[in-house]
């Protein structure tokens, strides 16, 4: 289809030599060769590669999951939400997971998390709502965040129709989706929006200032580089200059003054990821602000390395995701300090 792809493999072994300096997990390090290569320098191509691979790996939702596509009309635009509802008769109101995909604010789609949504719905017996939020650069901040807020509100208001328990909603975000998830939690807190039971974050993209040690150090890591981060923020912030004092906390949640009052949070970080240290900083500050937090840095991993789903460390990551969501949403009551 694309002649540039044919040249990708020799290039892959070149990149592998480049990556040898990172003591990646053996399986993860070798597997990096199997990942699609698309740079953020070329946004249309980046989206096309993601779309093509998502479609190639796609399978229809299993028979025990009802997949619906819902258009939420709002003023001037429409947000699309995909719902994944277990069909088995059981509880009338299930917990829900609002799923925010990754893609550096410029790419990715519900297609890219379709498999994950089906897995979560069946493994946990929960309703998954995956948001097709608008992407930069066509739709810079706050378009994507507004869409996520609309989706969360809809999920809460229409809980009865959707078979959702509105007191048990997790917001789940990976990478750029993780940044949106924290921003959404901050905005919900400040504006008195729907309650969030759990904030589930994987390698969240939080800080436009790009000054952390990991951001400076990981210029050529597999999965994500400091250059990718730079391009991502430039597109997402639109007319606002990245790194300037004008960047609002809802755009870059690392700039929030306090995290006090945020829901209990789970944070998964990857060792060789430029975003690692802004994640650790979020963890440190959340704990200082008395947010209930579980944090896990997976060794030898890189940004998005869980795509190598068969690897041992990826299996641990996936098992923990299920265990944490189950513990918070399905099992037992949350114990809050008084």
């Amino acid at each position: 289809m694309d002649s540039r792809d044919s040249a990708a493999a020799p290039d892959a072994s070149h990149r592998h030599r480049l990556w040898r300096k990172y003591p990646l997990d053996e399986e993860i390090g070798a597997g990096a060769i199997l990942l699609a290569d698309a740079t953020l320098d070329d946004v249309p191509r980046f989206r096309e590669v993601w779309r093509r691979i998502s479609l190639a790996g796609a399978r229809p939702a299993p028979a025990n999951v009802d997949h619906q596509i819902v258009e939420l009309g709002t003023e001037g635009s429409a947000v699309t939400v995909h719902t994944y509802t277990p069909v088995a008769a059981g509880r009338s109101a299930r917990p829900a997971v609002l799923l925010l995909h990754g893609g550096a604010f410029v790419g990715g789609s519900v297609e890219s998390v379709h498999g994950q949504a089906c897995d979560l719905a069946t493994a946990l017996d929960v309703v998954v709502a995956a948001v097709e939020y608008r992407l930069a650069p066509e739709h810079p901040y706050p378009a994507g965040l507004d869409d996520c807020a609309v989706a969360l509100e809809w999920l809460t208001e229409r809980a009865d129709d959707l078979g959702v328990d509105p007191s048990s909603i997790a917001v789940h975000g990976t990478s750029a989706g993780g940044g949106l998830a924290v921003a959404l939690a901050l905005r919900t807190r400040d504006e008195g929006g729907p309650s969030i039971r759990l904030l589930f974050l994987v390698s969240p993209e939080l800080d436009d200032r790009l000054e952390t040690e990991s951001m400076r150090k990981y210029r050529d890591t597999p999965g994500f580089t400091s250059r990718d981060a730079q391009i991502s923020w430039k597109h997402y912030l639109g007319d606002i200059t990245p790194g300037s004092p004008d960047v609002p906390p809802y755009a870059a949640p690392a700039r929030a003054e306090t995290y006090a009052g945020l829901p209990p949070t789970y944070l998964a970080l990857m060792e060789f990821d430029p975003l690692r240290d802004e994640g650790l900083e979020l963890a440190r500050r959340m704990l200082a602000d008395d947010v209930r937090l579980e944090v896990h840095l997976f060794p030898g991993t890189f940004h998005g390395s869980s795509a190598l789903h068969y690897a041992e460390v990826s299996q641990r990551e996936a098992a923990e995701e299920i265990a944490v969501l189950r513990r918070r949403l399905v099992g037992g009551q949350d114990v809050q300090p008084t």
Partner: protein
Amino acid sequence: MKALLLKLSTMDSETEAALRVIAYFDALAMRSATAEMIVRGAAAIAEAPAGLALSDGTTLRFDSSGARLSGRSPDAVLEETVGGIRAWIERAGDPNPLDALVLERFAIVATTASRERPVRQPTELSDPTSLELILSGREPLAERSVALRRLGLSPDAASVLIAVALDDDGAGVDAPVEELLHQLASTMKVRGARLGPVGAVIAQPNPGRETETLVRTVRDLIAGSRLASSARARFGIGVPGTALEAPTGWDSARTALRFARRRASGSSIVDADDLGPMIHLAQVEPERWMSDPRVRVLRELAGQESGAVDLEVLEAYLSLGTLRTAGQSLHMHHSSVASRLARLEERLDLDFTLPSDLFQARLCIYAATLAANR
């Protein structure tokens, strides 16, 4: 930004897919992946269950999601046997065009794998108990085989053992052992540990590399490295053999180490193979050597600053044959060489123009060294 897994079945060109397969398995080998990782990788890339039967009878099976499967599937349609291990892909239905390539790379790379997790940084010291186990002639073969695999070494592959010592103080030997591991790691598989006062290093050629030149490569790497000039480090290189013959190799390495003389500056390397029948001199009781007056003189000289230089001069003269070449090797004028040799002739009551006395001198140096390195 590259966060999505490509599937071979969806790649645009078969050439690209083939190159990725090769690069992927090469990378697994290069990163010392375990057998489990290699089987999981093969299953994932083939999008079908894959399995491996190792020469010790262990069977590993994983499906394409990375889940471990038990037992041996009856309908393994594609299999390949390489070097005592059997690798297979359980393809239901028509084979994929790349199955043959995947299976071939899978089988080859699997031969390089260890069953257990390998030492992550080969330049770090290994667990001494594992090293002790593989070097012990009293341990059963099966135990040593398991320990070798645990260290990421192949029991059947050629190996060379190196014994390392640093003066009398055992604790300091970690540094030259680590340096040696560092020197060798880029060219061969190495593991090392400190066993009491002596450092033990085992080296194996990387898969596909020649085994004949292993000892020479090891010796050249030591001689050409910082180790050669690091004061007082001594190295004994053992007789090569398979890793399961490591106890014999280790004995000869330790014996060779006894022939390595402590130097005032620089290191000393002795290869067991080079010693020939002289290696049996090591069996003589040190007390017996010390009963000889010339040996006692050499021992005494070794402990003095000027005497140690005299010994260097004598050794250089004995191995190089002329005043001029000995002087050149020590950056010393040949007249200084001559005056130091004259002093030694007097102390030892020998005449270095007579072949029989030269032999005496050489034998005395060995004897003094063996008496010092017990």
